[in-house]
C-alpha cells in the first residue's frame, strides 16, 4: 500500500463506467428486445439496482477491513483453500472474459473495417496493446479510464443527437405489454452487461479518501444504467420492436442510419467502431490487470508484471477456440455467465456475510 498508487474517487467512478461499458453495448438492445420486447428497459433498471446492491456490499467489505487489500481479506475470511479455489475460478473467468472481448472485437472490426486482415492479427495486436497498460499499476489504469469515460458519454450523446431526425418515439409504445414471467430472462441478459464492476476489488482499497468512494462507485452504476437506457430507447424508437429483434448490433446499425443533409456525414460506422474499440480497450485493460494480480498472488510473487506476457498466449488461444460468432456467445458466453455468477455475485456476498458474522462474534 505505497502512497504513490492512490486513486481519487473520480477515477474510481471513471474506472467502473469504462470497465462496464464495453462489448455489450452494441448488442444489448437486441437481446433485451428478444427477451422482453418493448419493456426491455425494466430489466435494465432491475439489473442496475442489483448491481448497485453488490457494489455497496463490496464497499462494505472494505469498510469492515480498512487497510487491507482484497487478497488479505479473502484469505482471512474464507480460509486458504476455499479462497484459492475462488481465485482459480476468478482467473478462469477473467481469461474467458478477455478472450470473449478480443474475439468479439476482432470479428466486428473485421466485418466493418478491416475485411482482409486476419482475425489472428487483430486479436494479437489488441492483446499486445492492452498488455502494455496492464503492466502498470491501478492508478495508471484509473487515469486511463478517466480519459476514456467522457468519450463514452460524448459518443452516446452524439448518437442520440444525430439520430433524432429519423427516430419515431411512438415506437416505444405500448408499455407494460410483455409477460412478467419473461422479466427474469431479461434481467439475466442485462445483468451480464454490468459485468466489470469486479475491478472494485482491486481499486477500492487504493482510494485516496475512504468516505465517498462507495458513493462514487454507485454513481458510476447509475450512469451506466442511464447510458444503457438511452441506447435502448433510441434504438427501439428507430427500429420498433420487430425491427430491433432482427438487428444483431442495433447500436451500430443505428449509426449507419444517420442521414444528415448535404452528405456532410455519412457512413459513420467507421468512426463509431473506432470509438467502440476504445471502449473495449478500457474494459480489457482492467480485466487484464486483475488477472495478472490474481496470478501474482497465487504464485506468491510481489510484482504482477511478470504474469502479463505469459497470459497473452492463453487469452489468444482461448479466444480462437469458438468456431464462429454464434458459438462464441453459446460457449464462452455461457461459461462467463456461470463463472461470473460465482465470482462477482457469490464471492462478495459470501465475504460480506462471513465478515459481518465474525465482527459480531468479536464484539460479543
Amino acid at each position, binding site marked *: 500500500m505505497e502512497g504513490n498508487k492512490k486513486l481519487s474517487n473520480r477515477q474510481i467512478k471513471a474506472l467502473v463506467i469504462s470497465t462496464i461499458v464495453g462489448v455489450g453495448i452494441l448488442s444489448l438492445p437486441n437481446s433485451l428486445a428478444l427477451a422482453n420486447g418493448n419493456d426491455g428497459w425494466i430489466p435494465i433498471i432491475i439489473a442496475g439496482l442489483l448491481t448497485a446492491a453488490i457494489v455497496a456490499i463490496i464497499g462494505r467489505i472494505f469498510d469492515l477491513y480498512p487497510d487491507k487489500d482484497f487478497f488479505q481479506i479473502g484469505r482471512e475470511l474464507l480460509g486458504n483453500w476455499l479462497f484459492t479455489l475462488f481465485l482459480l475460478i476468478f482467473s478462469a473467468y477473467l481469461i474467458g472474459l478477455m478472450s470473449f472481448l478480443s474475439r468479439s472485437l476482432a470479428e466486428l472490426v473485421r*466485418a*466493418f473495417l*478491416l475485411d*482482409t*486482415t486476419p482475425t489472428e492479427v487483430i486479436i494479437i495486436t489488441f492483446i499486445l496493446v492492452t498488455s502494455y497498460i496492464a503492466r502498470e499499476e491501478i492508478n495508471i489504469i484509473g487515469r486511463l479510464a478517466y480519459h476514456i469515460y467522457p468519450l463514452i458519454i460524448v459518443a452516446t450523446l452524439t448518437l442520440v443527437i444525430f439520430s433524432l431526425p429519423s427516430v419515431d418515439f*411512438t*415506437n416505444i*409504445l*405500448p408499455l407494460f*405489454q410483455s409477460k412478467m414471467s419473461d422479466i427474469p430472462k431479461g434481467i439475466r441478459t442485462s445483468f451480464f452487461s454490468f459485468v466489470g464492476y469486479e475491478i472494485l476489488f482491486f481499486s477500492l482499497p487504493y482510494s485516496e479518501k475512504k468516505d465517498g468512494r462507495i458513493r462514487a462507485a454507485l454513481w458510476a452504476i447509475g450512469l451506466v444504467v442511464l447510458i444503457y437506457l438511452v441506447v435502448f430507447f433510441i434504438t427501439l424508437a*428507430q*427500429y*420498433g420492436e*420487430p*425491427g430491433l429483434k*432482427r438487428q444483431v448490433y442495433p447500436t451500430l*446499425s443505428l449509426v*449507419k*442510419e444517420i*442521414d444528415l443533409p448535404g452528405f456532410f456525414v*455519412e*457512413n459513420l460506422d467507421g468512426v463509431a467502431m473506432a470509438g467502440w474499440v476504445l471502449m473495449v480497450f478500457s474494459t480489457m485493460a482492467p480485466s487484464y490487470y486483475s488477472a495478472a494480480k490474481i496470478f501474482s498472488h497465487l504464485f506468491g510473487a510481489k510484482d504482477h508484471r511478470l504474469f502479463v506476457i505469459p497470459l497473452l498466449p492463453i487469452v489468444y488461444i482461448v479466444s480462437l477456440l469458438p468456431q464462429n460468432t454464434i458459438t462464441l456467445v453459446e460457449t464462452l458466453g455461457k461459461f462467463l455467465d456461470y463463472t461470473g455468477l460465482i465470482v462477482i455475485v457469490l464471492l462478495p456476498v459470501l465475504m460480506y456475510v462471513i465478515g459481518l458474522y465474525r465482527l459480531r462474534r468479536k464484539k460479543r
Partner: protein
Amino acid sequence: MKKIILIFTALSMMLISGCWDMAEINERIFPYTVGVDLNPDKGDKYLITVSYPNIFAIGKNASQEERIYIISSTSSTIFEGIRKLNTIIPYPLYFKHLGTIVIGREFAQDEASMRELMDSANRDFSISRKIRLITAEDLANQVLCSIPIAVRQEAVDGTLFNMLKGDKRTARYTPHKLTKFLQEMEMTGSTIIPRVAFHGEDIKIFGGCVYKDFKFIGHLGEKDNGSIALLRGEVKETSVESPFEDILISYAVTSTKTRKKLDVEDEDLKIKIHVETEGILREYTYKEKSENLDPDTIKKMEEELSKVLEEETKKAIEILQKDLKADALGIAEYLQKFHPKVWKEVSDDWEEIFPEITIEPVIKVKIRRRGLTG
C-alpha cells in the same frame, strides 16, 4: 543509447507502418443503383443489373466519354450475381454508397425472391439501410439501361437516388427507405414504394406500388398515392385543386399534421384520421375590380378544398380496403401502439377485419397566406 533506440523506434513507426491492404479510391467501383429481376430467359433465376459511374468521365480533364457503365449477369442467388459481376469488371465492387435498389415487377410479385433480397440487403455489413427502394414498371434492367439515354436527367449516376431523395414538392410519389419498408412490413404487413418507368425520353417516377407480405399486389395512381401520403402524414409539400365559383383554385400545402383516433361503436371499429393542412392560396382569378379577399371567401375556399380532399382520400381508402385489402395506412401499427387491448382482440383476424372497419378522414384546410394580390 536509450535515446537512439527511442528515435529509431519512433522513426520506424512513422516510416514503415501503413496500410497493408491499401486500395486507391479509383481502384474501387461504387455502384449507385442495383436492379433485380427474375430472369426473363431460360437458365438462372435472377438477372442482376448494376450501374456505376465511370470516374474517368468526371471532372475537367475527363479522358473518357461514357459516363455510366451498366453491367448485368444472371445467377441463382442475388449475392452470387454480384460476385459473378466481378469477373467482367477491373476492380472490386463496394456497396457502401449504394443509393437505390430497383425491383423488377415480376421479381416483386415473387414473395420468396423479395424475402431473399430483403435478407441479403439487411444482412450485409456495408449496405446502408438508407437506400431507397423503387419498383420498375416492367424489368429493372430496362430502367437502368435507360439512365444514360434519359434526356433531362443526365447526371453522372445516382439519377434515381437524386429523384428519390425526398425533398420533392409533390406527393405523387413517396420515397421510402429500406428501414421503413422492413419496419412497416413487420408492423402492419403492407407498405407502399414508388414506381418507375421510362417514358419517351425521360425516367418518370410516379404513383405507388402496394406491397403486402413482401409481395407486390397492386398499383396506386398518382392522386391516390398523394391522398394516402396525406393520411400517413408523409406529405411535405403538395398542391390541391378545387372548383370554386366556376373556376379552379389552386392551393399549395406547406405543412400537415395527422392524428388517428379510435372510436368503438357497437363492436365495430371506427378509425378517424384527422388531418390538418396549412398552406398558401396559389391561383384564384384576376378579378375585374381590385378588392381584398374577405374572410368569408377564404372560409368557403377552405371548405371546398377540404371537401375535395376528403373525397379524394375516401376514394384512396376504398382502394386500399376493398381492392387491395392492404393496411398501408398503418392502422394496425396505431392499434398496437395506442390500443394494445383492442389489438389483442383483433390481431388474429386482422386480414378479415381490416376491409370491414370504417375509416373516416376528417380534413381541415387552413389557408394561411394568399400571395401578393388581394
